[in-house]
C-alpha cells in the first residue's frame, strides 16, 4: 500500500481475505459443544395455535430440547418492538400489536416461528423440527393493504382495530386545497411501489453462548449495528443486562437494511443457549430468508400535482397506504413517514404539500427499511408524476423539471427538510450530456428500423442521508439518538487503530477510513487498522444504514483526529522547543515551519508513551475519542437517464444506456463510490424490471426461492456511465453527503419513464415484466387502430 489520502482510488484492504475465502462470517464461528437450532414455522398465514406436541421430536437422535413460546414468555422474555413512535393525526399513539419471538397463541404470517429445536447437528435439528406436531386452527387471512382496511377484513391484532396502525399526516392541507382550486392543470396518478425481498448474499445467522459462571452471554450475529442490537436485547427484550452481553458482528455479507433489526431467531438463540446449557447456532436457509427477513416498500398511493399557467408546481397531494406486514419491525413506522413524506418536495420548489399515510397490518412478512427506505418510494412517486405532467402539458421532461428546480439555499420545504446545498442544474446538464440526449431521436429511428421501440426517461432524485440531529429525530419519535462515535488510538510505534461505531458489511470502511488517517498524518494506509463490530472492543456506536458511515461516522473520526493532532503538536512543540502554532504535519512528519527541524510521527507517538519528556501536566498516551451528532441531514441529489429498447413481440426491455450524475459532496474513494452506485442501480433496476414479492390470496409467498423471485443478473444491466458533481455539504467537516442508497432511489422511475416513453402508454406498474409491457403495448396499438 502507500500513502493514499482523500480522493485516491485505493484498492480495498479487505479484499484479500474476501477474495481468498478467508473472511470470517458468523457461520464460520465454532464453539466447543455447540448445538444447532432449527425453527418450527407456521405453514399458515393466520392461524390459532391449539397445541404443540414435541414428544416424537424429543425422542429423536441428538435432540436436546424443543422450546416453545409458552416457555419464552414464562422466562420473562419481552415482545419485539418498533422503536419509533408515530402518532396519528388525531393525536393517538400508533396501535402496536404484540410480537413474541416464538408465538404461543396466534400466528400471523407464513414462516412465523412457534418452536425451536436444539440438536447436535443441523440435520438432526431439521428432522426433529419436522417431527414437531402443531395443531393449528386456520383463520381467514388478508395480504393486500387496501383489502385489510376494508370493513369485514380479518382482524389481525386486537390492538389495531380494522388493521389500521396509524393514520398520519404532514403538511398544510388547506394550502394544498387552495393550490388545487386555482390550478391551471392537474396531473393525477395511482402509483404502486412493489414489495421487495432484500436478499443479501449472506443469510442471517446467530451463534449464542452463555457462560454460567460469569452469567455472561456472547452473541455472534449478522448485524449492521451490534451496539443497537445489544441495547434492544437488554433494555426491551430482557434477554440479558447490557454489561453481561457481548454482541459481535464479524464479517457480514451484505445487509441493505435487513440486518438492522433484531429478529426472533437471534434472540431465541441467546435465550436457548442458557436454557440448554450449550452454545446454540442458527443459520438461515434461503427460503427462511425469503419468509422472515424484513421485506421492503409495498406502497399504494394516489398522487396529484397542481400546476399554474406557467407550468410551475403550486401543490402536491399524496395519499399512501403502506403495508407493514404482520408485525411492526424495529424501524418500520419511520419508513413510510419521516423517511418518505419529508422527501416529497424532490428537487423542486413546491409551495404546498400535504401527505396522508395510513399503515396497515396484513398476514405477510413484516416490512421495514430496505436500501433507500422511504426515499425510493417518494422519488418514484414524484418522478413518475413529473414525467407524466411534462407529457400532459407538452413540455420536455428536462425543461419542466428545470422550471421548478430549487436554486437558492438553504431551502426550507413544506415537509420539514431544509436543503443545505446543491446544484440540480449541474447534475441534469451532466447527465443529459453523458446520455447524448440530443441524439436520442436519431437512435429511436434507427431502433425502429430494427423493429425495436426505443425510449428515454429521466429521474431527478434527492434523498436525505446522515440521519440525523439526535434532538430532531427524538422530537419526531425515534427511540434512539443517531450520532456516531470514534476512538483514535496511536500506538507507541506510530501505527493507528481507529475504533468506530460504524459497521462495514460491504462498504469498504477498512479502506476509506484508513484513507482519512493517511490524508491527515501522511501515514501509509497499511499503518492503520479499523476496528468495528464488537461491543467489547468499540465504545458505543449506532451502526451503518441510511448512507451514514461517511457523513456521520467519519465526522466522528475527524473530531477524534483533531484532538490527537492537537496533542501531537503540543508534544512536538515541546520536544523541538518551538511554538505550537508553528508545527505542521506533512508526509508523516511534524515540522517546525520555516526551519529544518522535524520529528517523525513515530517519534512523537513514542514520546507520548515513554512520557519521559512531556509538557508539564500532560497525561501520557496518544488516544482520543469523540462523539459526533449531525447538525442536519445531508442531501445527496442527482439525475439519472435511462434509455431502453423494448421488443414489441415479447415485451422484453433491454436497458441500452444508463447514465448516473450524482452529487455526493466530498468523495473519499471514487472506486468504492462507483461500486456503491453500481450496486444501488442494479437493485433499483431489479425493482423496476424484475423483483416482486408475490403472495396468493391465502398468504402463501409464491416467490420464496430464486426459481420464482427474479433477482437481477449481470446480463440484465448495461455498463453504467457514471459522473459526479461536487457541492460540499456545509454541515459536516469533510463535506460528505453519502452514496450508499442513491442508485436504488433514483433509478426505478428513470426505467419506467423510459419504457412508457418507448411504448407510448403510461399505465405501467413495477415490475415492468415482459408480459405487462407486451400486453400494454398491444392494447395501446389496438386503441390507436380503433
Amino acid at each position, binding site marked *: 500500500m502507500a500513502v493514499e489520502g482523500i480522493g485516491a482510488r485505493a484498492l480495498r484492504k479487505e479484499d484479500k481475505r474476501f477474495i481468498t475465502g478467508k473472511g470470517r462470517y458468523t457461520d464460520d464461528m465454532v464453539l466447543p459443544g455447540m448445538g444447532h437450532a432449527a425453527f418450527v414455522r407456521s405453514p399458515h398465514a393466520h392461524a390459532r395455535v391449539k397445541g404443540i406436541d414435541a414428544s416424537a421430536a424429543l425422542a429423536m437422535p441428538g435432540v436436546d430440547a424443543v422450546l416453545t413460546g409458552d416457555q419464552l414468555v414464562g422466562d420473562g422474555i419481552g415482545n419485539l418492538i418498533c422503536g419509533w413512535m408515530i402518532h396519528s393525526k388525531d393525536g393517538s399513539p400508533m396501535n402496536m400489536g404484540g410480537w413474541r419471538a416464538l408465538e404461543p397463541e396466534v400466528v400471523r404470517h407464513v414462516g412465523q416461528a412457534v418452536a425451536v429445536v436444539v440438536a447436535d447437528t443441523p440435520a438432526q435439528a*431439521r428432522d426433529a423440527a419436522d417431527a414437531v406436531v402443531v395443531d393449528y386452527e386456520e383463520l381467514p387471512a388478508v395480504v393486500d393493504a387496501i383489502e385489510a382496511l376494508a370493513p369485514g377484513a380479518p382482524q389481525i391484532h386486537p390492538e389495531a382495530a380494522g388493521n389500521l396502525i396509524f393514520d398520519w399526516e404532514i403538511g398544510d392541507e388547506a394550502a394544498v386545497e387552495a393550490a388545487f382550486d386555482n390550478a391551471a392543470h392537474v396531473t393525477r396518478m395511482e402509483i404502486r411501489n412493489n414489495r421487495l425481498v432484500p436478499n443479501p448474499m449472506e443469510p442471517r445467522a446467530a451463534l449464542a453462548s452463555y457462560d454460567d459462571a460469569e452469567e455472561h452471554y456472547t452473541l455472534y450475529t449478522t448485524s449492521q449495528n451490534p451496539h443497537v442490537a445489544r441495547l434492544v436485547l437488554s433494555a426491551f427484550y430482557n434477554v440479558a443486562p447490557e454489561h453481561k452481553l457481548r454482541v459481535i458482528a464479524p464479517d457480514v455479507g451484505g445487509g441493505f437494511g435487513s440486518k438492522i433489526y433484531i429478529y426472533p431467531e437471534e434472540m431465541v438463540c441467546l435465550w436457548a443457549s442458557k436454557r440448554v446449557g450449550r452454545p446454540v447456532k442458527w443459520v438461515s436457509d434461503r427460503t427462511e430468508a425469503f419468509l422472515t427477513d424484513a421485506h421492503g416498500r409495498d406502497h399504494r398511493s394516489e398522487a396529484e400535482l397542481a400546476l399554474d399557467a406557467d407550468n410551475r408546481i403550486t401543490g402536491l397531494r399524496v395519499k399512501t397506504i403502506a403495508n407493514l406486514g404482520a408485525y411492526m419491525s424495529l424501524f418500520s413506522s419511520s419508513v413510510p413517514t419521516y423517511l418518505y413524506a419529508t422527501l416529497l418536495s424532490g428537487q423542486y420548489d413546491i409551495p404546498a404539500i400535504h401527505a396522508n399515510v395510513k399503515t396497515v397490518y396484513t398476514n405477510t412478512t413484516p416490512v421495514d427499511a430496505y436500501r433507500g427506505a422511504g426515499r425510493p418510494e417518494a422519488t418514484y412517486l414524484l418522478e413518475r408524476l413529473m414525467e407524466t405532467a411534462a407529457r400532459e402539458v407538452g413540455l420536455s421532461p428536462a425543461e419542466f423539471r428545470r422550471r421548478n428546480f430549487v436554486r437558492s439555499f438553504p431551502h426550507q420545504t413544506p415537509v420539514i427538510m431544509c436543503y443545505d446545498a446543491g446544484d440540480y442544474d449541474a447534475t441534469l446538464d451532466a447527465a443529459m450530456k453523458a446520455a447524448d440526449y440530443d441524439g436520442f431521436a436519431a437512435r429511436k429511428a434507427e431502433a425502429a428500423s430494427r423493429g425495436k421501440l426505443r425510449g428515454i426517461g429521466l429521474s431527478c432524485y434527492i434523498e436525505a442521508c446522515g440521519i440525523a440531529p439526535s434532538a430532531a429525530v427524538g422530537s419526531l419519535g425515534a427511540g434512539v439518538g443517531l450520532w456516531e462515535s470514534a476512538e483514535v488510538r496511536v500506538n507507541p510505534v506510530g501505527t493507528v487503530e481507529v475504533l468506530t461505531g460504524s459497521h462495514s458489511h460491504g462498504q469498504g470502511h477498512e479502506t476509506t477510513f484508513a484513507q482519512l488517517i493517511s490524508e491527515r498524518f501522511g501515514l501509509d494506509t497499511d499503518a492503520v487498522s479499523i476496528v468495528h463490530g464488537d461491543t467489547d472492543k468499540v465504545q458505543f456506536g449506532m451502526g451503518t444504514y441510511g448512507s451514514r458511515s461517511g457523513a456521520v461516522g467519519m465526522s466522528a473520526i475527524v473530531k477524534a483526529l483533531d484532538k490527537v493532532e492537537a496533542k501531537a503538536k503540543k508534544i512536538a512543540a515541546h520536544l523541538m522547543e518551538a511554538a505550537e502554532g508553528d508545527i505542521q504535519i506533512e508526509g508523516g512528519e511534524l515540522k517546525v515551519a520555516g526551519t529544518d527541524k522535524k520529528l517523525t510521527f513515530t517519534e512523537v507517538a513514542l514520546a507520548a508513551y515513554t512520557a519521559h519528556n512531556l509538557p508539564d501536566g500532560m497525561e501520557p498516551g496518544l488516544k482520543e475519542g469523540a462523539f459526533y451528532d449531525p447538525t442536519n441531514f445531508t442531501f445527496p441529489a442527482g439525475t439519472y437517464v435511462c434509455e431502453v429498447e423494448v421488443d414489441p*413481440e415479447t415485451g422484453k426491455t433491454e436497458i441500452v444506456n444508463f447514465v448516473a450524475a450524482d452529487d455526493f459532496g466530498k468523495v473519499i474513494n471514487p472506486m468504492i463510490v462507483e461500486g456503491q452506485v453500481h450496486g444501488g442501480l442494479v437493485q433499483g433496476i431489479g425493482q423496476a424490471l*424484475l423483483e416482486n414479492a408475490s403472495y396468493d390470496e391465502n398468504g402463501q409467498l409464491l416467490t420464496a426461492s430464486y426459481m*420464482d423471485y427474479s433477482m437481477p443478473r449481470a446480463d440484465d444491466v448495461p455498463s453504467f456511465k457514471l459522473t459526479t458533481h461536487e457541492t460540499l455539504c456545509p454541515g459536516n467537516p469533510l463535506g460528505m453527503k453519502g452514496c450508499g442508497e442513491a442508485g436504488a432511489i433514483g433509478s426505478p422511475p428513470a426505467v419506467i419513464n423510459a419504457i412508457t416513453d418507448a411504448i407510448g402508454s403510461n399505465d405501467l406498474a413495477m415490475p415492468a415484466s*415482459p*408480459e405487462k409491457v407486451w400486453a400494454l403495448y398491444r392494447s395501446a396499438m389496438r386503441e390507436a387502430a380503433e
Partner: protein
Amino acid sequence: MYETSYHRAGSLAEAAQLISNADDGKFLGGGQTLLPTMKQRLAAPSDIVDLTKIPELKGIREDGGSIVIGAATTHYEVASSALLKEKIPGLAALAGGIGDPAVRHMGTLGGSIANNDPAADYPSALVALNATVATSKRSLSAEDFFVGMFETALDDDEVVVSVSFPIAQKSAYSKYPNPASRYAMAGVFVARLGDGSVRVAVTGAGQNGVFRATAMEDALSGNWSPDAVAGIEVGADDMLHDIHGSADYRSNLVTVMAKRAVAATG
C-alpha cells in the same frame, strides 16, 4: 437434506442390481435437479445410484445417418462437440444455452430427459429431430418416451443409455427464458429432417410438457421462412399459466420463438 446412501455404478448390470436392492432408490445423472430437490427436502430417496461413470453411457459418435450421444454426456460436451456443431448445430446451440456454466458441466442429457421437466430444453430437440432413445431394456421414439409433465415411459429400474439423433438438413432452437429461473417459458425447436419432412416441437409452454406444433410444420413444409409461422398461434387452451406469464402470453411467445428459430437456420 435427509440422509441418503450414495452408490456409484460401474455397469448397467450393477446399476440395476443396486436399484433393486434399495428401499426407495433413485438414479442420479448430473444431479442438477435431483440434488437441489433433496436439499429442499422435497425428495428423500433412501439410496442414490450414480450412473455417470458407466462407460457405455459416455461419448458422442456418428453412426450411419445419426449422431449417438451417451446419456451421461454433459451439456457442455454436447455444446462444444465439433461433430454436433457441424451435423446438428441446433442441438449444440440448445445445449450451450441450458442453465449456467456450472449446470452445463454437471448436467447430463440422460438426466434431463429422464426427469422430463416441462420447462427443460432437450425434450423439444428429441421430438423435433425424431430421435430414438435407447434404454437398458428397449428402444423408444422420442414421442413415445415423453408421456407428460415429469413423466416418461421409463420403468423404475430402466436407465437411458443413449439418444440417437438423425442428422437434419436444418435445425435451430429459440427460447424465451423465465426471468427468475431462466428455464424456458417457451422454447421452440425447428428441424427439416434428412427426408425433407419438417418438425416443430415446443417446450416450456404446454401443460403436458413437450408437444408438436403441427400447423407450423405444415406451413414450413411448403415455405421454410419466418413469415410462414408468423401468423400461426398454438392457442392458449393447453398453455401453462403462472406468475411469470399467462397462457395467452405463452402462446404468443411460441409463435415468436418459432419465427426466430426458423430465422436462425439461415
